[in-house]
């Protein structure tokens, strides 16, 4: 894999780096290099704010291999404020109940570990937006 492609995959997973179409300004996530709206080449990088809201969600009790430690956990369809929709795990819920329309923000977390000896895999999850006494 060419180095720049590898870097882009990490940026996608760690920081929600996507693309924007130079022809029609469609914002694209995950990056796919071709604009789904107009079909033209779209390779311009675009960094999402990480803010969005829960569009739909479900709780996973029987986790696939590598994710058992976290079960049960909540998976959500999150609509980013810039438009695209993606699937991600919700985290830091504490005792909050998840609701459709709930404002969430991206955090980089441990997605899975391949046992005691394996590699740790990090990527994006979403959590309830942090309450701030004084907003920016």
């Amino acid at each position, binding site marked *: 894999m060419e180095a720049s492609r590898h870097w882009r995959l990490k940026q996608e997973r760690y920081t929600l780096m996507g693309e924007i179409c130079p022809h029609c300004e469609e914002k694209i996530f995950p990056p796919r290099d071709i604009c789904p709206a107009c079909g033209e080449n779209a390779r311009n990088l675009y960094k999402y704010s990480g803010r969005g809201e829960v569009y739909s969600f479900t709780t996973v009790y029987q986790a696939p291999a590598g994710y058992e430690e976290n079960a049960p956990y909540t998976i959500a369809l999150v609509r980013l404020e810039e438009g695209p929709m993606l699937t991600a795990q919700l985290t830091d819920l*504490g005792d909050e109940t998840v609701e459709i329309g709930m404002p969430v923000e991206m955090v980089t977390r441990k997605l899975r570990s391949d046992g005691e000896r394996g590699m*740790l895999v*990090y990527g994006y999850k979403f959590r309830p937006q942090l309450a701030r006494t004084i907003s*920016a």
Partner: protein
Amino acid sequence: MTDHKVPPILKPIRDVGIVGYGAYIPRYRLPASEVARIWKAGSGGLLIEEKAVSGLDEDVITMSIEAARNALARAEIDPSEIRAVWVGSESHPYAVKPTSTVVAEAIGATPHTQAADWEFACKAGTEAIQAAIGFVGSEMARFALAIGMDTAQARPGDPLEYTAGAGGAAFLLGPAEISLATIESSYSFATDTPDFFRRANEKYPEHGERFTGEPSYFKHITSAAQALMQAIEASPSDYQHVVFHQPNTKFPQRVGRALGFKPEQIETGLLVPLIGNTYAGSALVGLTAVLDVAEPGDRILLVSYGSGAGSDAISLRATELLPERHNLAPQTQDYIARRTEIDYATYARFRGKLTMK
């Protein structure tokens, strides 16, 4: 041996300051009374109220990333201008593979950057800051990022289990003229003192009772603070705030009193009662709480302590640029207010104390 009439302080050629800072404290809290309940210890004379506990998907890497993002939000610089990402911790997720490269990648500082992990018990974060001061102060770099972060481990039932918490902070060092707080000077004091240690491949640390307290924490912090203040002709009354390493509530209060500081100078940065001892993050997260409220011209003294043993003392002064950057990222008190209490069983699960297979 040279006889130093004036303590030899560490001062770079170019003036350096903090351009951005950011804290991180995880959501979960384990009350000390809950630890006492499990070990039938009674709840009189507990050293803190509760400690912060990281969630199942958190570690020093993920926590450092969030603190670093907060520091960058306040600094408003292009992360590709960062030439060093240094993370000090006792709980790096990997024994071999740097925390710092993942953090650097996640904040967009790669690939033109130095990256390294630092170790020196609880002062690994302040030594990363001192090295960053040198990196920027020598003009090798325009920006260097120093982080102190821990998810502290303690053996179940050990007195440390009441206080060993999770959290820390990130500081972006850069040229003084664009800083929200300038570094006036710093000083480092270290001796070979075996008060606390963990051998390779051991999960939990050991502490030598005989060396805890007087010959370690108090001696090193007092020596470092006094030497720095003597060298720059400052006295305790010149400072609006002072932040010490805080393994419990009493130690920083006592060392502060011994040095001649008043309780109100210590108060703002004393977070240990509510988040526990965050080891390499301890003094640094206290400094973020001070910077959140400090006003231009305020002087701040920071003194860390790391077992083994040493103290770094750093004298800072807030600039006119600080107030406008207060709210560009979450304040430390916002993280403290985000609080979900857990019981000991949940804590045991979160901290990997249950064997699943």
